[in-house]
């Protein structure tokens, strides 16, 4: 193989080992048929935030897994404090003080915070009896360190998602983690929760914890990072102290070209009112409302962004519009027709389509092919009587794959083999195939890379020009300002502000998103019996 000298990333070696706690040297990771990392050198600096960026498939997660011991390098080695180590498992990495918080949280909602923190590492008396008091005391200390003001006995399911993330961090800290890997920690957090997390990261840093921080949100990286490493196609394309870089530089290193233009197209007229919601409300179990008498209008050719925090009732509003909650109050009118009493299938047929927030749980059919995933909502259109005309179906699938630039070798491959961005495009294709009048998009850019994001934004724009009404939900300020013609802000189940996109300021948006928002944990809804049954049934089936 190549001599290390031929590699362009020499700064790691130049930097001296004093401030480097962990270094990855010449690591190559080969999966059957693909090389995820190619002779990568990467240094984690002590007491600093080491940012790792790259598009999906660039090798970020492989690198992360190697550092966390979940995967082993095919070639190359890891040096911890200058000493070569072999991390055969996550447990071993944890013993070396390397902790990881995955994007998909690994918590048990039915157990308490203390039980979660010490899961599989319980503090015991004589190896049998769990010393709950000792665990509680230790967890209380950790929670204090993380400024999370809840009891260790709180059930995890009663925590907001940002708080759950802090519990994951507590889990790593309980094992005296000196290196903490955070994988997209903010993807599900509200602006306020992000601030809390950043404060925690700053505190940990000052306590000497080294952070490896992975994210797609570039502004955030610039703010929080001390060093940045960019990966593309399994190679490191850039490695700099954060002070010396800016967003265009990062994007250039990531995609090999400058950022795409998100600017608004000019001069297309908005059409007639296509969706009206009047006093839509969804009661919360145990009092109050998840969706609190929301009224809104959407015109054809208009993109309306709904900005708000997680738990503000945005997804529930979409579910009410689509008819998932038969007991929801209020009235929905689609293109002049009331949707009262119509089941989901009728609403979809009438021209509503939802791109759900949680792709895996609510949108993808993992076993089925890319093609079957795309045509599911629109099978009737391909069928003559009882028979699906496969020629037509195939032609339609191929044309959408082309139009949306979906990267897939064969449309008969299972959809689970695609990257997040391409899966999202498949879900969008499914919605578009029904020729909807109104598109409801719930966090359409969540967990996808910047290239796919730009593609999807462009598609949204094009659709609006063609006369679709688009209602989309996001917690990303940049995104809501760049894409929307009009911005609604939701907080605590209500619409608290409405802005024309031109006049919306960050401060006004954030302020409106915090109106009347719950901060306590005690008022969290008790999970209802129905919800449980539903889950059990799905699990059993």
């Amino acid at each position, binding site marked *: 193989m*190549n001599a290390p000298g031929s590699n362009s990333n020499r700064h790691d070696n130049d930097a001296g080992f004093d401030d480097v706690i962990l270094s990855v040297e010449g690591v*190559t990771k*080969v*999966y*059957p*048929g*693909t*090389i995820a990392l*190619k002779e990568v050198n990467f240094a984690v600096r002590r007491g600093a935030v080491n940012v790792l960026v790259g598009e999906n*498939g660039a090798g970020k997660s492989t690198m992360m897994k190697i550092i966390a011991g979940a995967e082993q390098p*095919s*070639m190359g080695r890891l040096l911890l404090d200058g000493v070569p180590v072999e991390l055969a498992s996550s447990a071993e990495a944890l013993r070396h003080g390397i902790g990881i918080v995955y994007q998909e949280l690994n918590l048990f909602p039915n157990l308490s915070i203390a039980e979660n923190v010490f899961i599989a590492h319980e503090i015991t008396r004589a190896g049998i009896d769990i010393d709950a008091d000792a665990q509680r005391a230790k967890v209380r200390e950790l929670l204090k360190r993380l400024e999370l003001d809840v009891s260790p006995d709180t059930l995890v399911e009663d925590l907001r998602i940002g708080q759950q993330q802090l519990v994951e961090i507590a889990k790593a800290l309980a094992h005296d983690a000196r290196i903490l890997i955070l994988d997209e920690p903010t993807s599900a957090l509200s602006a306020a929760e992000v601030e809390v997390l950043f404060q925690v990261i700053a505190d940990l840093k000052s306590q000497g914890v080294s952070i490896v921080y992975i994210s797609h949100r570039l502004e955030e990286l610039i703010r929080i990072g001390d060093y940045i490493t960019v990966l593309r*196609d399994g190679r490191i394309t850039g490695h700099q102290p954060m002070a010396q870089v800016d967003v265009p530089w990062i994007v250039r290193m990531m995609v090999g070209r400058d950022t795409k233009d998100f600017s608004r197209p000019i001069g297309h007229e908005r059409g007639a009112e296509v969706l009206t919601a009047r006093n839509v409300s969804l009661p919360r179990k145990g009092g109050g409302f998840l969706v609190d008498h929301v009224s809104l209008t959407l015109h054809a050719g208009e993109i309306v962004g709904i900005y708000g925090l997680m738990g503000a009732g945005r997804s529930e509003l979409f579910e009410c519009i*689509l008819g*998932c909650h038969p007991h929801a109050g209020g009235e929905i009118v689609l293109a002049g027709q009331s949707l009262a009493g119509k089941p*989901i*299938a009728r*609403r*979809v*047929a009438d021209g509503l389509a*939802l791109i*759900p927030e949680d792709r895996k*749980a*609510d*949108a*993808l*059919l*993992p*076993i*089925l092919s890319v093609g*079957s995933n795309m*045509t*599911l*909502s629109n*099978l*009737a259109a*391909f*069928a003559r009587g*009882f*028979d*699906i005309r*496969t020629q037509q179906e195939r032609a339609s699938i191929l044309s959408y794959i082309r139009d949306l630039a979906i*990267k*897939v*070798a*064969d449309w008969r*491959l*299972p959809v689970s*083999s*695609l*990257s997040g961005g*391409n899966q999202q495009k498949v879900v969008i294709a499914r919605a578009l195939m*029904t020729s909807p009048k109104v598109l409801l998009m719930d966090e359409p850019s969540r967990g996808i890379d910047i290239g796919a994001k730009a593609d999807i934004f462009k598609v949204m724009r094009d659709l609006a020009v063609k006369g679709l009404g688009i209602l989309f939900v996001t917690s990303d300020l940049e995104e809501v300002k760049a894409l929307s013609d009009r911005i609604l802000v939701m907080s605590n189940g209500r619409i608290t502000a409405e802005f024309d996109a031109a006049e919306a300021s960050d401060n006004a948006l954030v302020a409106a998103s915090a109106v009347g928002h719950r901060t306590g944990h005690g008022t969290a809804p008790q999970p209802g019996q129905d919800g449980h*049954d*539903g889950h*059990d*049934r*799905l699990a*059993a*089936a």
Partner: protein
Amino acid sequence: MTGSPQRERDSPFASSAIYTLETLHMTVAIKSVVPASSIGEAPLLLLLKLRTFIALFAVLIFFSFAAHNFLSIANLLIMSRHVALNAFLAIGMTFVIVAGGIDLSVGSIVGLSGMVAGGLILHGIPLGGYTLYLSVPVVILVALAAGVLIGALNGVLITRLNVAPFIATLGTLYIARGAALLSSGGETFPNLTGNPDYGTTGFPLLGSATLFGVPGPVWLLVVIGLFAAYVAARTPLGRQIYAIGSNERAAQLSGVRVNRVKMTVYMFSGFCAAIVGLIISSELVASHPMSGETFELNAIAAAVLGGTSMSGGRGKIGGTIVGAFVIGILSDGLVMMGVSAFWQTVIKGVVIVAAVVVDQVQRRVQQRFALQKQAATGA
């Protein structure tokens, strides 16, 4: 060597070209670092995919040597008769399992529909002082309707009342069996040849008729098998059944009428079971209330053997039918060899478990293979 991924991506060739490039890439770049276990995965995958067929040929060849007269036409016809009964149930069961459910009630529906037919032929319907006798085609329709009705009951319990499929169909298993026993007080309805005076003759023909020497039930299996395979592969209903089994909530949000599809699936399963009940009663010219007991287990076994995944979303009608043949031939062949019934039971269990293990192996190989294909596209 290091430039090869770029070359693949820029390649103007279609996927066939990518494949060869990919293999090249594999052998050059990877052999040195990973053990050469990846060689010959395509043929391996094909073998694994055809495993049910291979198992079928294996049992056929084995018994043709081990059991006297096994390959005689007469014996094959008798066996296909036995297989057909299980295959009907297994076809209905496959749809149910693919949709993410389970139907334990089919064995009892076999018994009940037979009793409905037997009762109507033998005793008719008492109407005050008169007794109404139905002609055999009408009797058959009524018995089929009884099966569909129990299926509909399953569907309502599962879709409207949110009862887990296992529990709902366990309940109807007992209900239908109890109803079958009640209909005659536990007695057999004997001698269903019918009475020419009442126009109730001809029922035995259903089971005994042949066409070109092949028994009627086998022809019926061909018809229903083709129909079911077509529904599964080429109709919106079929696609939606797979979608529901893969991710019910996603299907719902995409506008699939989940409840309606599930109702259809359970009603079809009941329909298939009723056919079996009718055929058995007709063959025996008698209906017994305990007929069909534990048939549901054989049906599940055939479906699983044919590659149906118990977690839903995966399974093929063709595979299920072949699976039913493997089970049927296995038990008939062992009987002819004089193997004890106890050993037969053990062997059947081993075969089922082995089938699922092989299924898992295939899934893993397939995943690895898909990964390689994906790597070839540079995704």
